[in-house]
């Protein structure tokens, strides 16, 4: 997924909204692929029976999967991941198979060559049967420091 905005330092201003990037809908195979790539074999993300034993209706995504998508979006906003200096995410709620992930961000402040951005990822989808989740809610929030090309 590409964003048409490889922003340079001269393009950005405080309060600037960044292009929305949507990933998904998340499929089971995306979770399995990430489990293998990352080495995260916690069965709660892969095995429905195990997840149900832990009180969840189905298996759900590891937080670092949408965080990885988000890092991708932030990288694309500013011309590539090599310009990232710091990246932080907080996990607010679980992300389920079938969810779309909507990444939104804005420029918070600019200090010299360093641009601080704040962002959220909303999960958007019906969620698993029985949970009656909102069809859209913030799942991750965070901030990053980027040194975009001049």
């Amino acid at each position, binding site marked *: 997924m590409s964003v048409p905005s490889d922003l340079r330092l001269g393009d950005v201003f405080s309060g600037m909204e960044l292009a929305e990037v949507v990933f998904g809908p998340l499929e089971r195979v995306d979770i399995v692929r990430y489990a293998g790539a990352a080495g995260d074999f916690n069965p709660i993300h892969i095995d429905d029976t195990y997840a149900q034993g832990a009180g969840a209706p189905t298996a759900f995504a590891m937080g670092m999967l949408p965080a990885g998508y988000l890092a*991708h979006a932030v990288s694309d906003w500013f011309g590539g991941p090599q310009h990232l200096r710091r990246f932080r*995410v907080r996990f607010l709620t679980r992300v389920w198979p079938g969810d779309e992930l909507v990444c939104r961000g804005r420029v918070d402040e600019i200090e010299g060559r360093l641009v601080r951005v704040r962002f959220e990822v909303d999960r958007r989808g019906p969620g698993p049967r029985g949970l009656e989740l909102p069809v859209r809610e913030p799942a991750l929030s965070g901030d990053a420091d980027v040194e975009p090309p001049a």
Partner: protein
Amino acid sequence: MAEAVIVFELPVERGKVREFALAVAEDNPIHYDADEARRRGLPDIVAPPTFTVTQMWQVPREERERRLGANLAYERVLHGEQEFFYQRLPVAGEVLTGRMRIASDVSKRGRRGGSMRVVTYESVFTDASGEEVVRALYTLMELPTS
């Protein structure tokens, strides 16, 4: 007896970089194509920003727990927060050295009452010349027993 630090190697293998980049839906050619990476001033293909989480392959949770001894009740543990500090991105072909320790272990009042334990693991990754490349903070929250 718990150890203060776990030292381990994180090889930045070319195939592993591609595999991880695919898993986070990356389409930037600097993760796949060495010529494209060089055209952008990088020495070779580079790892995506969250790549160092693959340290789980080197130090799985059980080993981390046994050696660092945080003694968390994992049936009540959530991944609360993650943060990375970058000097540069890892480059395919290099072998990073990771040093993992418990950076903080505190109790906070939970939102629904009770005491919540918050443990942050720090992993510092250095290159062959000893320079820091990436520092990662992995924060787990142990919820109160209900």
